[in-house]
């Protein structure tokens, strides 16, 4: 930090971790803190003071704050408020350009809850070391709305991109500190190279690491390897027992050695020819891959860990035992220097990403949601899209950010707000600026379906809009419309000109010679979008949908009409 920088804008990085385990993610955090510290960037670690991680961080002279992250499940629920308050207080002291890294899923949930109630908070970065969270609906609901997503490893990033369309996911490579890389390179020894290769595995004994699977695979190709040295602390007792039993049953006890936790990597790597990473679970980019290459040992990974950026490195992949045998028989003898690897697996990429997020370029991530953000795709989007076939040509009147366009190949949205249309276009959706007070710029009968959602309460002459909708619909084409019911909350929005009732809404469409196919009330009570987003059908869950029959539940009227 230079003296000329104003205080409020100084870049700082805080790392949140629950310190439950001391795994790859935690060592990543310690390495990151070390690199940041040497670059003169203020760094803090917030973790439970009695965790192994906090202990290690204090020994390295890091600034450690004591914050607790109790489980988010019933027995510990009562502890959540007590844990949230100190976290919120800590975060409220961070400058707006501070980047707060949620290093585990649980920390990300806590940080989101704490920051949502802060008017001006730091930038939250969800740092993903694995892909598990992509399969959790609650986690996806958070990532879609709050914080920036940074994934370690290309395959992790790809998974998040697939599960969260429209959300930016930055990719960074796992990294090693340059000093550490040079130290390993200096400790490099020639491989034992005595006939068939000695296979090394560095992991933890948990099902995700795929050690049981590797034992099976090795038993099928007994001639391709001489022995296997599995260095893995027995984290999961049952799994450790299962691995031991399987090795004994296959009669491989003299060839496969379970070494437990090892601390001396230099000696370990001097005794193996190749490192195999057999992970079956979701994993980003294990650090051992970089370490192994630095020790001069090629790496064989299971297919799903493969990434395009491994291209010209001594890394191969396998899916079947035969492919593993082939890879073991053709080990590349490429030796890369620390400088060469620094270009691929250095800290610079990560530092640049974090700096970018902390600077103004990412400020849009932290400002409070604008009017259009609240009209993003709701969790119950299927309640709207189910009325049309995906191949239909759809017109969306008053489209906002045009989220409906993601569900139809042939889609056009119109909106009179150029700001909304700009946002829609930035997301690659087809929208044009047009006021509904004017004649629609489309030919008669040119659409299979029209969606007019939350618009008619804003326009001066709803009947004229419905007349235009009928004109552009083809015969038998359908229109879905919804607007607020005549309830008090309608007047919470000063741009609303009038509410409707179910009878009034039907008449509005009947009068323009449209046949009503269905009509009703739909619940828009606060939070229903989030709840529906957790449902498999992406529709309002029926008990909540039924509640909309009660006149005091916040609701819309809707109509599905057809051009006769």
């Amino acid at each position, binding site marked *: 930090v230079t003296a000329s920088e104003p205080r409020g804008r100084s870049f700082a990085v805080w790392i949140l971790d629950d310190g439950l385990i001391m795994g790859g993610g935690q060592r990543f955090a310690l390495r990151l803190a070390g690199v940041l510290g040497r670059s003169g960037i203020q760094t803090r670690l917030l973790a439970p003071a009695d965790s192994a991680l906090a202990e290690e961080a204090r020994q390295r002279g890091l600034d450690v704050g004591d914050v607790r992250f109790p489980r988010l499940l019933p027995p510990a629920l009562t502890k959540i408020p007590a844990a949230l308050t100190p976290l919120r207080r800590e975060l409220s002291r961070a400058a707006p350009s501070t980047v707060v890294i949620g290093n585990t899923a649980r920390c990300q949930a806590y940080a989101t809850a704490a920051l949502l109630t802060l008017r001006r908070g730091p930038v939250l970065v969800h740092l993903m070391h694995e892909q598990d969270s992509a399969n959790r609906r609650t986690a996806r609901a958070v990532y879609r709305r709050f914080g920036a997503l940074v994934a370690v490893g290309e395959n992790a990033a790809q998974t998040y991109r697939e599960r969260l369309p429209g959300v930016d996911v930055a990719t960074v490579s796992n990294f090693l500190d340059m000093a550490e890389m040079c130290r390993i390179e200096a400790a490099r020894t020639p491989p034992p190279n005595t006939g068939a290769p000695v296979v090394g595995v560095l992991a933890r004994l948990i099902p995700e690491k795929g050690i049981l699977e590797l034992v099976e695979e090795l038993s099928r190709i007994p001639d391709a390897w001489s022995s296997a040295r599995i260095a893995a602390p027995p984290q999961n007792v049952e799994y450790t027992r299962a691995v031991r039993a399987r090795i004994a049953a296959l009669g491989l006890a003299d060839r496969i050695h379970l070494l437990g936790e090892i601390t001396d990597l230099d000696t370990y790597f001097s005794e193996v020819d190749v490192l195999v990473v057999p992970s079956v679970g979701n994993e980003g980019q294990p650090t051992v891959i970089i370490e192994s290459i630095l020790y001069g040992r090629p790496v064989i990974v299971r297919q799903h860990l493969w990434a395009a950026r491994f291209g010209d490195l001594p890394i191969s992949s396998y899916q079947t035992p035969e492919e593993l045998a082939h890879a073991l028989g053709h080990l590349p003898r490429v030796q890369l220097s620390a400088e060469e690897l620094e270009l691929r697996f250095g800290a610079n990429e990560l530092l640049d990403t974090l700096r970018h997020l902390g600077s103004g370029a990412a400020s849009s991530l932290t400002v409070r949601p604008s009017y259009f953000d609240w009209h993003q795709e709701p969790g119950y989007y299927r309640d709207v899209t189910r009325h049309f076939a995906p191949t239909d040509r759809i017109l969306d009147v008053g489209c906002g950010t045009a989220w409906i366009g993601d569900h139809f190949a042939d889609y056009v949205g119109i909106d009179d707000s150029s700001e909304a249309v700009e946002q829609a276009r930035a997301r690659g959706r087809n929208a044009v600026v047009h006021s509904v007070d004017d004649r629609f710029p489309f030919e008669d009968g040119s659409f299979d379906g029209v969606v007019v959602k939350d618009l008619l309460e804003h326009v001066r002459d709803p009947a004229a809009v419905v007349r235009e909708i009928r004109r552009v619909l083809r015969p038998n084409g359908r229109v879905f419309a919804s607007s607020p019911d005549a309830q*008090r*909350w*309608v*007047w*919470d*929005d*000063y*741009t*609303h*000109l*009038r509410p409707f009732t179910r009878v009034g809404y039907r008449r509005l469409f009947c009068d323009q010679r449209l046949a009503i196919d269905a009509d009703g009330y739909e619940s828009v009570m606060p939070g229903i979008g989030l709840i529906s987003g957790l449902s498999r059908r992406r529709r309002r869950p029926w008990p909540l949908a039924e509640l909309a029959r009660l006149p005091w539940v916040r609701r819309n009227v809707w109509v599905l009409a057809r051009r006769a």
Partner: protein
Amino acid sequence: MARPMAADPREALEDLVRELGLERADAQLSPVLDASHTELPLPYADASLDALVVAGPLERAEDPVAWARDIRRVLRPGSSVLAVAPDAGRWVWNDPLVRRPYTRKSLRLLFADHQFSVRSSGYRSLACVPAPLRVPLDLIPGRPRLTWVLALRL
């Protein structure tokens, strides 16, 4: 027997002005417009007023946003506006000239979204009862009451 159900809104407004401490002995009153005035722009020069009370026109206005913009135009920077409008409820439609009611939320947003800083806001019951009894009635939606906002022009 005819009995007034609600107090005269004018009295409620005068009470409110007194309670908010907006009365000033040296106030130079500009011509007061009739509540049915719905024409824009307002007949005042730009940045010519130190304070403004708006009661009546907002619920009759076709475009509340245009009103917020014009109110901002005639006020000096740092001066304040007290805006009053009927709260949403069936009773509002008893007045055939009303186009739209408000809630505290929409009245606050109307000013906050157009470069005012909202200082305070609230509800004021129109029930014809002594002050201590009126205060709890202020909080109950549905019965005749006004919503008000005191905002500073930025």
